[in-house]
């Protein structure tokens, strides 16, 4: 047992302090107001303080911290994207993640398992090679592997998928990892709080004041806050915030569902994704299989569950792992995803001075948490977006310069 746990055994009173102070009413004004107390917003607050010394910051969370998509995703972290912009961006995120437990002194269980994106068709194999080649070019460890290598990493997998969709190969991505999603939010919250940022839970933004093209304040259920800089980091709710400043975006909301089984002794060591079967699965440190599928097919601002989701997912899970017939699904849930036409985020400045967007995260937000926090902090501090996120700018749609991630969309998450 690690020594640092001894203090808990010896101390009569539980020796751990609060993760973050509980503030009730905000001050009259802040240099920066961050809307959304999820991983992204809290990370932005943390890096604003740490990298740029900006600490007069309020993070406003409608519910409780990490209660949105941060606490609902399936915790996969990877960088095997299709476009160089995408790969570079997510690779930077992976690199921060690798040291994040130490930096935040919180065990995020960042566990590198290796990530296989299975291909069942020739055209899928083409996409795998495309991604592998781009990854290699940028210096990320991805390669196309054959069935035998997949079998070695996951001997339990039925390579014929019950004869329905034989696996031709896969994109293998060594850095693919999972992490404790809640911990990421809590760690950044603690970090930001200790550096001076103030976190307000149960604090809902009701409006944003814009005067001649400039942000000047935020209306909340806890009063009015003066500020010249507002960051919207509310994946799943972005259109409600952008509507407050009359900003049009391509974002539409689709639910993304997931489910989890009873705990069982560990057997699945890798992360598996099948585009054709719409399945992604990994086994958590608690021993549960954490499973997800593709987006719900229509727009709805709701986290309701559907039966056809779990029926389709489990049926395909059985194609891959026939022996799971009597393993039980304990719980299903859903999050709301900001979808964009080119399956890439929308980050950076907007036509409204002082209003910054960290949005359009689709189903990829969790893996980007550290780097989005870092780059948005940079954007706010310098009022100009770093090159790393230039191709994610909102104006790309007006410029007909969409990113090329669409090609890889079939195999997401």
């Amino acid at each position, binding site marked *: 047992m690690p020594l640092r746990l001894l203090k808990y055994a010896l101390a009569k009173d539980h020796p751990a302090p609060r993760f973050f102070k509980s503030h009730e009413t905000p001050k009259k004004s802040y240099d920066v107001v961050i809307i959304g107390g999820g991983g992204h917003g809290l990370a932005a607050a943390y890096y604003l303080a740490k990298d740029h010394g900006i600490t007069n910051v309020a993070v406003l969370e409608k519910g409780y911290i990490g209660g949105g998509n941060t606490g609902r995703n399936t915790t996969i972290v990877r960088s095997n994207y299709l476009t160089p912009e995408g790969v570079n961006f997510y690779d930077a995120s992976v690199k921060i993640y690798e040291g994040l437990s130490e930096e935040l002194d919180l065990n995020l269980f960042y566990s590198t398992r290796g990530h296989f994106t299975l291909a069942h068709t020739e055209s899928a194999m083409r996409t795998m090679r495309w991604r592998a080649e781009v990854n290699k070019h940028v210096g990320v460890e991805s390669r196309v592997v054959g069935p035998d290598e997949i079998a070695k990493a996951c001997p339990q997998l039925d390579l014929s998928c019950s004869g329905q969709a034989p696996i031709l190969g896969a994109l293998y991505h060594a850095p693919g990892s999972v992490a404790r999603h809640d911990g990421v939010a809590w760690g950044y919250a603690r970090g930001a709080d200790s550096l001076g940022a103030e976190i307000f839970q149960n604090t809902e933004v009701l409006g944003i004041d814009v005067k001649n093209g400039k942000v000047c304040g935020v209306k909340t259920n806890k009063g009015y806050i003066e500020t010249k800089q507002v960051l919207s980091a509310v994946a799943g709710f972005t*259109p409600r915030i952008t509507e407050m400043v009359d900003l*049009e*975006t391509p974002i539409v*909301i689709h639910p993304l569902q997931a489910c989890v089984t009873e705990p069982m002794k560990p057997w699945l060591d890798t992360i598996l994704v099948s585009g054709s079967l719409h399945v992604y699965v990994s086994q958590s440190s608690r021993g549960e299989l954490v499973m997800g599928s593709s987006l719900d097919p229509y*727009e709805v601002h*709701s986290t309701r569950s559907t039966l056809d989701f779990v029926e389709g997912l489990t049926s395909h899970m059985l194609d891959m792992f026939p022996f799971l017939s009597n393993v039980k699904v304990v719980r299903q849930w859903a999050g709301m995803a900001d979808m964009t036409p080119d399956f890439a985020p929308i980050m950076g400045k907007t036509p409204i001075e002082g209003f910054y967007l960290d949005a359009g995260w689709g189903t990829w937000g969790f893996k980007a948490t550290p780097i989005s926090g870092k780059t948005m902090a940079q954007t706010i501090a310098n009022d100009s977006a770093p090159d790393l996120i230039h191709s994610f700018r909102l104006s790309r749609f*007006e410029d007909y310069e969409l990113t090329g991630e669409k090609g890889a969309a079939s195999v997401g998450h």
Partner: protein
Amino acid sequence: MKLLTCPMNGTRPLSEFIFGGEYRDAPDQKTCTDKAWAAYVHNRSGAPGDKKEWWYHSPSGTWFIAERNTLTDKVSRTYLLGTQHANSSANPVLEEGK
């Protein structure tokens, strides 16, 4: 699974339908600016609320319009484009109650 009522074929589970996106009137492409057209092509009114949407009943090949609240997911009416009178309700199961 959710139920949706096709004006031609009646109430069916959602699995029989394909979502066709929001019904939107295009700006006059002769007169509108490039900026306006790009906005029309890419931007959406993503905030929750009542929307007019395209839905397609696959087994019968019927396109129709559904007026749906994207927050509550309740459909107020469905009809064939051009026959605006609501000839069906959102969901008999839920609306039979007096």
